[in-house]
């Protein structure tokens, strides 16, 4: 009985493999192809003639199959004009954008280029500017809170040790990757994975201080030298992440398929609101720690004047160790939440490093609350700027603000006016 079942499974598996093999054959072929799948509100559109031509005189034709798929093999990279013969379309099926037929596309070497022809009425809704602005503002707030988590740590590390840490972005990436490992490979729920990640990243901060920065401080290595060392560390770590994790972008299993819950035009998911809530609670908790606890007061004292606080009996090394652990943990949490917001890859931390720097400089180097204000400004500016400029340029606005603020108010919004040159 069991043997029959096994045989049945094998037969079915074999049949599936055969099917997949047939279906995949065109895509696996070497060289360049232009292809697509014709679908009219979900249903395949078979029997439509499509022609690809090039200026070099090439002409190839294909007819969409029962699944609506069509593939045209082209002779090499270059520009192709892909035309759909509207006479072969079934009745009542019309192109949604007739002006995009024929469609000109550029095919790169060994590329399988997909060309989409859409059918039916244009169902896109154009949002009003006010709705877009409201949504962008909410997204910016979410992004700003994320940056704040990383920026507060970076700013305190700078304040207590003078180090401009270019490897802080890698702590953010580490957070996202560790959480991905726990959530995807181990199968721990995302919330628990986040807690474990914060512990691991706090540990990573401690290890960095214990193994690298502490000994360097004791040797009396200069600040500029330490900054360059942090660049080396950043490159080495980033490409180690690439080596282990690969170059692909992945998302947490628990964060997939979440839908927006509003309100109104705002497209944030329940998980997004939860992550904003977590950011706010953690930042408030950290503010309480800095303002009300003995260790927190000692931390602010060291950030203000290390020599004087050492003279008044504060254990500076202990404070710096705590700052590194807290900075690592906060950056790790930022990484987890950033992974929810925009998926996980090996250089996500490095990509926002300059924004973190911009926030910290904007708020005033070395101050914790300045970093918070600066982050919110940067996050909101980055997102709101996409109302006017292309989304691919959204970081440019924030970096330009960084340069302008240095011209006008080098000490930052909350920094004390002092000689910085």
């Amino acid at each position, binding site marked *: 009985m069991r043997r029959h079942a096994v045989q049945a499974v094998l037969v079915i598996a074999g049949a599936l493999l055969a099917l997949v093999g047939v279906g995949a054959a065109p895509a696996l072929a070497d060289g360049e192809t232009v292809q697509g799948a014709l679908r009219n509100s979900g249903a395949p559109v078979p029997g439509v003639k499509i022609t690809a031509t090039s200026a070099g005189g090439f002409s190839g034709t294909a007819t969409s199959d029962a699944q609506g798929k069509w593939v045209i093999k082209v002779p090499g990279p270059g520009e192709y004009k892909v035309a759909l013969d509207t006479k072969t379309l079934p009745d009542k099926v019309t192109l949604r954008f007739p002006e995009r037929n024929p469609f000109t596309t550029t095919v790169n070497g060994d590329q399988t280029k997909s060309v989409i022809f859409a059918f039916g009425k244009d169902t896109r809704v154009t949002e009003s500017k006010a709705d877009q602005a409201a949504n962008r503002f909410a997204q910016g707030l979410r992004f700003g809170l994320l940056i704040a988590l990383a920026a507060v740590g970076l700013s305190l590390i700078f304040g207590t040790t003078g180090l401009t840490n270019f490897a802080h972005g890698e702590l953010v990436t580490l957070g996202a990757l560790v959480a991905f490992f726990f959530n995807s490979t181990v199968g721990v729920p995302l919330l628990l994975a986040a807690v474990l990640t914060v512990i691991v990243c706090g540990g990573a901060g401690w290890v960095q201080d214990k193994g690298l920065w502490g000994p360097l401080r004791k040797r009396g*290595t200069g600040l500029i*030298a330490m900054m360059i060392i942090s660049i*080396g560390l950043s*490159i*080495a770590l*980033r490409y180690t992440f690439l080596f282990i994790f690969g170059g692909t972008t992945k998302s947490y299993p628990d964060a997939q398929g979440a839908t927006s819950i509003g309100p109104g035009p705002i497209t944030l998911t329940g998980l997004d609101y939860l992550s904003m809530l977590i950011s706010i609670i953690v930042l408030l908790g950290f503010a309480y720690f800095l303002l009300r606890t003995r260790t927190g007061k000692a931390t602010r004292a060291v950030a203000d004047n290390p020599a004087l606080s050492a003279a008044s009996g504060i254990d500076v090394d202990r404070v710096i160790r705590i700052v590194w652990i807290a900075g690592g943990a906060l950056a790790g949490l930022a990484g987890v939440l950033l992974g929810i917001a925009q998926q996980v890859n090996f250089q996500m931390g490095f990509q926002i490093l300059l924004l973190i720097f911009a926030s910290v400089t904007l708020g005033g180097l070395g101050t914790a609350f300045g970093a918070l204000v600066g982050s919110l400004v940067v996050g909101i500016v980055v997102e709101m700027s996409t109302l006017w400029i292309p989304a691919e340029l959204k970081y*440019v606005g924030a970096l330009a603000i960084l340069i302008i603020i240095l*011209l006008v108010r080098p000490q930052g919004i909350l920094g004390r006016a002092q000689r910085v040159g």
Partner: protein
Amino acid sequence: MDWGNIIDNALRAFIGIDTVIYALAAIGLNVHFGYTGLLNFGQAAFLAVAAYGLAISVSISGLPFGVGIIVGLLGAVVLAILLGIPTLRLRADYLAIVTIAAAEIFRLIVRSASLRDQTGGSNGLSAFSEGFYSLNPFPKGSYGFGPFVYNERDTWVLLVGWVLIVLASTIVWLLMRSPWGRVIKAVREDEDAVRSLGKNVYAYKMQSLIIGGVLGSLGGFMLALGKGSVQPDLYGTELTFFAYTVLLLGGAARVLGPVIGSALFWLVLSLTDNILNQAIDAGYISSSIINSNQVGQIRFIMVGVALMLLMIFRPQGIFGDRKELALDGR
């Protein structure tokens, strides 16, 4: 494993186009960082401005090659002034953050799809180097000896590149033994002392930023002409960090430090790349541990670790003088 091939490749890399590009970029950085103590982390922007200045003038505006070179050089001067005005009065780490931000702004803008007609977007531009190759005095054929055999195109590029390196090094040597060079080095050592002697420190720093930027921009021309195209992602932050590694390897504040650093840097990278690749092909290293795609990643990990170790244990590099590199305060 074919050791002859590995060694031939390494020797070619020793004087190859990458060595030329990074030597020029690092000669410029040497003026900034080695002699003046300016932390310029945006050297990639100087190379990019020069390369794009040339490419846009020739292939978009249709200007002659010589005009393109002048536009590129002027671009580097303008960039230095724009970067210098807000930052040279501030502490060194501000200059570092602003220059790296400026380099990224430039890269993001030229790779933007909305400027595709002017800059070619993420594909970049090509077809601007005919003017350069039409000056080539070498007739068709192959030149050289031993492992160093090149076609007429490569011979011309490498010859021009090494002539530029000799010129740039001579300029740096002459500048640094002049009174101007002594003031620059004094600025690195103690800015306030120089100011108290009545020198305009800001102006000296600005001049140094411009000269180093223009020298570095020569590397941008070589990168554009050597590849025959400009692509925005070649001018990312890694270029600057590699140039720093090259400079610190050879020894900052030494005229020939960047040149020797660059040659050694690419020799070592070529050796490790080739040895790893051949070991994987020959099955000495299982491809489950390292596959051939990952060899390039190991290169970056090595550069990062090398930069850390150099800075920790031998900040003066191979030829530098430790006293010349008191990297602190600024």
